[in-house]
């Protein structure tokens, strides 16, 4: 059997003397969509930043497709195939849409194939093709989110992580975004998705993890989780 697309074991990290992750274990099978949910401040973003090498891990390991990437610098993590669309979009706000996408294709492998990938991204988000020379900061929130996802796709990821892609989006935009994600899923790609929109995301995910207090407290398939009483009580206020 092939090794998991992403495997996180016993990961610890934090900021200065603030400890945020206290032993996180996650596995992403190839081609799967996995949801990660948890309260605000639970450490979801921190997990992604730690995997990306932006926050140093104090213990634990991360593997991509069987290759260990713990403690690699960020750009090597991207080369290894883990790419995220960060929380709050984090566009290069003074640069055009096209430039934002091109920065995404910075790595050697991605750079070589950038023209093909660009066509695919434009297929996925036709509006971006129209607005290719618009300055990113003047786009609407939904469009900005598309740029962020598109930029991540430009790096030819094996594992695509989306951190709260629906944040700040009108529900109708959220629906569209989730449609797009469904289409991305059709490509040979694993997706790790963090969402507040728990219902929607668990419906589309193959599997879900709940992060609480820096540890995984619960995991299971979407429907299982949705049926879980604890989860319903904590996150849905039901």
């Amino acid at each position, binding site marked *: 059997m092939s090794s998991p697309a992403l495997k996180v074991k016993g990961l610890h990290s934090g900021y*200065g*003397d*603030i400890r945020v992750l206290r032993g996180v274990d996650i596995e992403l099978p190839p081609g799967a969509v996995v949801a990660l949910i948890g*309260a*605000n*401040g*639970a450490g979801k973003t921190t997990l992604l930043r730690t995997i990306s090498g932006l926050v140093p891990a104090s213990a634990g390991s991360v593997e991509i497709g069987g290759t260990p990437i713990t403690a690699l610098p960020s750009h090597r993590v991207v080369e290894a195939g883990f790419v995220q669309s960060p929380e709050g979009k984090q566009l290069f706000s003074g640069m055009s849409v096209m430039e934002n996408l091109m920065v995404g294709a910075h790595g050697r492998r991605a750079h070589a194939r950038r023209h093909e990938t660009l066509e695919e991204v434009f297929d996925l988000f036709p509006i971006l093709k129209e607005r290719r020379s618009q300055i990113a900061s003047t786009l609407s*929130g939904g469009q900005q989110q598309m740029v962020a996802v598109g930029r991540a796709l430009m790096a030819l990821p094996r594992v695509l992580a989306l951190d709260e892609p629906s*944040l*700040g*989006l009108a*529900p109708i935009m*959220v*629906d569209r975004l989730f449609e797009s994600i469904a289409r991305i899923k059709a490509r040979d790609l694993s997706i790790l998705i963090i969402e*507040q*929109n728990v*219902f*929607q995301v668990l*419906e589309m995910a193959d599997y879900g993890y709940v992060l*609480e*207090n820096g540890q995984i407290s619960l995991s299971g398939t979407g429907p299982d989780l949705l049926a879980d009483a604890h989860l319903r*009580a*904590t996150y*849905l*206020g039901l």
Partner: protein
Amino acid sequence: MNAPLLSVEAISKRFGGLQAVKDLSFRLEEGEILGLLGPNGAGKTTAFNMIAGFFRPDEGRVLLAGRNVAGLKPWDICKAGIGRTFQLSKPFGDLSVVENLMVGGFARSSDRRRIRTLAEEIAVFLGLEAKAETEAHNLTAFDRRKLELGRALSTEPRLLLMDEVVAGATPSEAVEMVALVRRVRERGVSVLIVEHVMKVIMALSDRVLVMDRGALIADGRPQEVVTSPDVLKAYFGERYVVPRA
């Protein structure tokens, strides 16, 4: 009847082309806990910041016990009797818990002894007495949130504005926080609370406001509001409505 403690009258705020808050009006009575809900980007924090004096409203008035405080500087608003907490908690990391609490006390008085006594009392109130001398940056995330609340209390406000106080808390911590906010009210402080966690809002609020795209779309008792179709649609998304229905 005399004037409500807080009366917000048609405040608006634009950021460039974006109308973040539009004609928002509501009242808050003395002793009330009022919840403010709304999807991300609805304008809650912006409204909150206008009341707390961090933004000057483009239009409208904010009356605290009948006195317009809109456009006052944050420190003057604090002295007028409005305390606030921040969405991202911002304790003074180099100072100990008690010292953090004392900073707030200086807003009202220069009497060190009195302030220290008050700070210690609040540390006990928060359940942080064992950590009173701990430097704030060594606190856990949740303790920092409590400290954030206590620091606002130490300015002896009449109204406390709280932005997402339980974000990041575990369920049991949330329970503790809910109890704490109730006891804040028992101290005679009215509360305006912005919160995403429904359970907290439902448990705490006497009344709930719901904002969407800068405007108020609902105002009422918690149970009534969450079952209103408008709110369900705006806040929880259409798919959420289906399983509930």
